[in-house]
């Protein structure tokens, strides 16, 4: 069944080398099969790879960066403010994506764009200015070295309006830090996969958008009726108010109690002083406002201000759980003000907080264990909880100074320079692991190992379920849940919505099929959409295998197999490599992949059809 509405049926292609900007039509077949967001991006990146015979330098001009909202982005339904960045990742060298909340995607849609593709490299540092139907590449060399906030201010001044949306990179993106992020709405970030470095390599400081178009909706009355049911459900949920108050910060206490909180570079599973960096501490002393992404009732964002002491004047939206854990307990930092400050630095310099926290944690442990010498640290020692040394290191990474120049190349760069560090760094495929300790749950290890972008929890998050189930959970059930998550969670990124109403408040996922049907007029069941999402998972897998990855890369790092968690409810836990391998084999079988993890040959045929042209 074909798509009747929901799209502008247009993509914008910008080649920064030649300066050419053109709008191209998107065919109904393309829209129906790839849905939007990550789906569009994966297909476009795949086509680009094929056109370049699979030889693409992630930081070279041929690498295509796609920014794509989904058909649900901007619509009247819960948390519809999401938009994806898709490219070959400089962190992993393979498929990478990252989604961003806020309002950027909505504005792109209102400018009539379903997907924006950027290739080439501008001669001088520039911004891309999409003003409704007009697109201009505007050189702004004066933005060099500016922080995200400074740059946004200067851009608004130059264009003479504040009524625009700005996605911007900081100094870290410009200096090609491999985990640089893209910042929009001041403190929302497309954090992972190094999308900021891709923009930096293209000499593009910002993408600036203004749009005013009506979003196409097939049946607005049906959409409103369905959305009202979803909003009403969320507002009646017993944890709804708690979400608005604390957001993801409430996970700190849970994770510490459950023994899965990254502490001291994942040596420990619990942080005795977690009370000093938890949601309650935030509420009592720091929070000055709630903030929400577009059309979101949960408002998980917390705006915090440090009112006194060393870091007085620090304002940031955040931290949320990942940032607080990776920059707090993982580094042994027990001052919430310091965590806030580190978070603000990462946002302003434009770096992913998870990777930054992970690499600094590894550096501290490396020095503690004698793997790194004082000379390696440029003569400046660093220990757990050493706030000023940590802040200094964040600056050095962003500007690639001294040891910062090595850390800026991510897990792989550090291991290349100091091979022994492989025992201390937690990463998969070159992406540093998120803030859930997988040694506590083998299904979480499987989720990290088989995630297409590396050790990130975005594709599957099964750790809470496994802890709840304990030993009563069979391998079969673990693999099934990982695969279900890997179908459903990426579907949110295809549709252009946030997954939190589902995962955190239990909003029934069936709603999303009805939203999609009402907006596009293409009647689809959830099962059908999940099937499509699975096709995209096969496609991103195919991208990775064609770029040389295989079973050997679906492996957890040394620490996960060899070093048991030292303290907390999970003390002593470690992943048994042999049983993990069995789990992986079962996963491949259930996915229909071969023993080395190659997707079925039909996937290649299916996705190689030429569809984008109208």
């Amino acid at each position, binding site marked *: 069944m074909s798509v009747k509405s929901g799209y502008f049926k247009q993509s914008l292609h910008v080649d920064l080398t030649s300066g050419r900007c053109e709008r191209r039509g998107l065919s109904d077949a393309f829209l129906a099969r790839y849905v939007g967001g990550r789906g569009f991006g994966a297909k476009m990146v795949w086509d680009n790879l094929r056109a370049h015979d699979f030889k693409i330098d992630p930081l070279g001009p041929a690498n295509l960066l796609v920014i794509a909202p989904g058909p649900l982005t*901007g619509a*009247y339904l819960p948390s519809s403010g999401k938009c994806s960045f898709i490219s070959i990742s400089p962190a992993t060298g393979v498929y990478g994506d990252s989604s961003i909340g806020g309002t950027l995607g909505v504005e792109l849609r209102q400018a009539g764009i379903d997907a924006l593709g950027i290739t080439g490299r501008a001669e001088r540092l520039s911004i891309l200015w999409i003003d409704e139907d007009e697109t201009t590449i505007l050189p702004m060399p004066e933005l060099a070295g500016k922080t995200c906030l400074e740059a946004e201010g200067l851009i608004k001044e130059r264009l003479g309006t504040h009524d625009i949306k700005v996605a911007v990179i900081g100094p870290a993106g410009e200096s090609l830090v491999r985990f640089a992020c893209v910042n929009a709405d*001041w403190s929302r970030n497309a954090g992972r996969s190094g999308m900021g470095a891709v923009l930096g390599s293209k000499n593009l400081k910002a993408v600036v958008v203004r749009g005013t*178009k009506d979003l196409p909706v097939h049946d607005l009355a049906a*959409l409103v009726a369905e959305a009202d049911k979803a*909003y009403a459900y969320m507002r009646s949920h017993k944890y709804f108010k708690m979400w608005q108050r604390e957001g993801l910060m409430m996970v700190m206490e849970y994770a510490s109690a459950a023994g899965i909180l990254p502490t001291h570079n994942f040596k420990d599973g619990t942080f005795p002083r977690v009370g000093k960096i938890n949601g309650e501490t935030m509420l009592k002393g720091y929070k000055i406002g709630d903030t929400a992404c577009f059309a979101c*009732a949960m408002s998980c*964002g917390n705006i915090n201000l440090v009112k006194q002491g060393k870091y007085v004047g620090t304002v940031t*939206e955040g931290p949320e759980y990942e940032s607080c854990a990776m920059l707090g307990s993982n580094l042994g930092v027990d001052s919430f003000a310091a965590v806030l400050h580190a978070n603000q630095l990462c946002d302003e310099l434009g770096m992913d907080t998870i990777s930054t926290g992970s690499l600094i944690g590894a550096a501290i442990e490396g020095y503690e264990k004698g793997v790194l010498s004082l000379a390696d640290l440029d003569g400046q020692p660093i220990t757990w909880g050493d706030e000023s040394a940590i802040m200094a290191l964040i600056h050095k990474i962003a500007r690639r100074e001294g040891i910062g120049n090595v850390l800026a190349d991510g897990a792989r760069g550090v291991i290349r320079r100091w091979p022994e560090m492989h025992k201390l760094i937690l990463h998969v495929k070159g992406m540093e692991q998120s803030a859930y300790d997988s040694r506590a749950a083998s299904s979480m290890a499987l989720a990290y190992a088989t995630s297409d972008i590396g050790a990130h929890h975005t594709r599957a998050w099964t750790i809470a379920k496994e802890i709840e189930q304990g030993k009563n959970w069979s391998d079969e059930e673990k693999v099934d849940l990982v695969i279900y998550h890997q179908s459903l969670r990426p579907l949110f990124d295809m549709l252009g919505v946030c997954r939190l109403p589902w995962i955190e408040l239990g909003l029934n996922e069936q709603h999303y099929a009805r939203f999609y049907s009402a907006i596009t007029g293409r009647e689809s069941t959830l099962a059908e959409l999940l099937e499509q999402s699975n096709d995209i998972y096969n496609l991103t897998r195919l991208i990775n295998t064609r770029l040389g990855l295989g079973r050997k890369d679906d492996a957890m790092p040394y620490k996960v197999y060899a070093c048991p968690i030292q303290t907390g409810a999970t003390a002593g836990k470690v992943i048994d490599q042999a049983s993990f391998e069995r789990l992986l084999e079962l996963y491949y079988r259930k996915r229909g992949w071969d023993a080395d993890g190659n997707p079925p040959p039909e996937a290649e045929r299916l996705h190689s059809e030429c569809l984008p042209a109208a």
Partner: protein
Amino acid sequence: MARKLAAIPELCSGCRICELTCAIGHFGVNNPKKSAIRVLVTYPHPVMRLPVVCSQCKLPLCADACPVGALRRIEQVVELDKSSCISCMKCVEACPFGAIYSHGALDYPVKCDLCGGRPKCVEKCPKGALRFIPEQSLGESKRMNNVLSYTHMKEIEFTEQGQQRTIRYAEIGKEELS
């Protein structure tokens, strides 16, 4: 009873559900840029999210600026007569709060009409940041905050029937007693 649509910036999260609700209700389109209420956000100095919407002034400057008399205050609402509007948008410029909006695809300004007496944005706001309150209640919370700023609030914790409770009270300064 005369009622006013009031926004409480401290509660607003900037989610823009009000904008969508307004545009869908008045124009039948999913387009926040066609809303008569818009959330203005500033960050980080100061951190502010303020829904800007028509105050239905009793002496409306927008009506004064209208060369064809298309804006008139009828009962509680400054109403726009679309049939006589010439689309000059002078009202948009005249409003001291910038609370009337224009959109390139519309031939008349976008202005709050209080949804005929039951503003839908108030119902849909998930934060309770929008209130439709009796006119004499305007400024109520500001007054209360101002009063509280004069007191030195203290907290004591105690246990009542096994439950931990807190009571707050204002301690009068010793110098005031002597």
